[in-house]
């Protein structure tokens, strides 16, 4: 009895280390797993193991991938001279759906955040610099439009501009296809401030 309680506690402790899961929900999840059929529980354990065994990171762009180089880096149809820099894999997936963009990606693996102890050396910036030597003409910086993402964009722009490569930043403000009437006032005001001449 006591032994099984200890292993539930161990599982709950493990789950509580996951992002966004507090102690309470970790305990709830642990008891839920306990109630699962043996088959379901093992499938969960197996898929965790499988993810670790099969999925790795692309050695070129740092995207998560089951092959190395990844699907995108090894696609000759894509423009090889344009790289879009994003914070996370999920951002690359979102940008990949953008029509009119068929270049390559580079995943930084986060953004500058001194409060979390994350400096330039903790991001995959060296890998990006190496890639630039192979005839890249434009780097599009698509970090998040928050304080940390903007600071990361500023850092990258300062690093890359002296190399004579065109550096662009995705526009802030109104998402295309959105209705003015549904945009919040902050977005509208920033959009007004950032207006451009035709």
């Amino acid at each position: 009895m006591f032994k099984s309680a200890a292993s539930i506690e161990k599982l709950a402790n493990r789950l509580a280390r996951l992002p966004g899961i507090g102690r309470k929900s970790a305990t709830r999840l642990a008891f839920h797993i306990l109630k699962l059929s043996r088959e379901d529980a093992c499938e969960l354990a197996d898929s965790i193991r499988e993810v670790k065994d099969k999925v790795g990171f692309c050695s070129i762009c740092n995207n998560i991938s089951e092959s190395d180089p990844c699907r995108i880096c090894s696609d000759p149809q894509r423009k090889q001279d344009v790289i879009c820099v994003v914070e996370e894999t999920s951002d690359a997936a979102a940008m990949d759906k953008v029509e009119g963009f068929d270049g390559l990606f580079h995943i930084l693996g986060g953004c500058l955040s001194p409060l979390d102890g994350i400096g330039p050396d903790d991001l995959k910036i060296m890998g990006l610099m190496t890639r630039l030597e192979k005839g890249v003409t434009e780097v599009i910086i698509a970090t998040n439009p928050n304080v940390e993402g903007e600071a990361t964009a500023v850092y990258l722009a300062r690093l890359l501009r002296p190399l004579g490569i065109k550096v662009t930043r995705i526009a802030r403000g109104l998402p295309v296809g959105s209705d003015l009437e549904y945009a919040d006032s902050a977005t509208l005001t920033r959009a007004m401030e950032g207006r451009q001449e035709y």
Partner: protein
Amino acid sequence: MIISKLKATGFRNFASATLAPADGSNIFYGDNGSGKTNLLEAIFLLCLGRSHRGATDTIMVQDENPFYRVEGQIKTTDKNYEVAIAFQRDGRKKVQIDKVSAKLSELYDLFCAVAVGPEDSVIISGSPSARRMFLDIYLSQFRKLYLDDLTQYRKALSQRNAALKQGHDPSPFGTILAEIGARIILGRIQFLRELAISTSQFYGNISRGRSLMLRYEPSVPCDDDTDDLKLITERFLEKLDQVRIREQAVQTTLVGPHRDEIVFSIDNRPARSHGSQGEWRTAAIALKLAVYQMLREKRRMPPILLLDEIFAELDQHRVGGLIECFGQFGQLFLTTAVEPPAALSRDGRSFRIGENRIEGSQ
């Protein structure tokens, strides 16, 4: 703007208190320590989600209670809103408008309130942070974006300070800090420019002819008649560059709106070092009246007005001048230990506050 119902649970000295205020004046009688001011605080909290005197949420929770909850109904020119603000000791805070969770800043969009009380003297006599808190509470009611900018600015500031402490290059966050900080500075310039004029008018009225001036002193050098955001941003960056070595030594950001100052002077002498208690009180009241009037014009509705013991320290002719200044006010909440002037108790309702409960009478 009118509050028609208020219920406070686990708030300060009230385990549970309900209030059905009148549309006009509401007068709270009670001994010192009965919790009259706490009730004003609950009303301000209902409108704007924070204490009017800078108290933290943890302090506002009743002893040994795990949470506070303040809820009520607020009527504006166009709609009736059901508002609830709740805070749990573990740090979770919830704002609900019409039973839907909302951001704190949405309250600023919908409602406005001005509190006048004894603690206001520190705006004139206290440290610069008291003056910045005044700016933050009241300027946010004029521009919702100011509040958003403040939140972002604080984030950029703590990131930049962390970079300085770790010996990382602080300049990427400096660029962002200057961009957001310049917007805050410009907002303050424009607000104080207008506020200075009506504050000195009100002070002249209440004090029968004496003069009060206020001047904004941003830590980034710029003229107070500028409206040039780009110029302020450039100056901000220049100034950051100038203090770079000193910042590396002290490991903290020395330039920006978090270091700004407002200088008050009474009869051309610095009020902070030369003023008397009475002058500080009067100056602070003039300042709040000016805010009240500007808000009423800008928001096209009279803000909720909270007056905490304002007659206690003022002499008779100042009280007279003060009442002339209020003119058209909307809903008013007033605490007092003495009989208030008749002009302020029109179509009113009185409440006796004692032993942690409220008794109403017509």
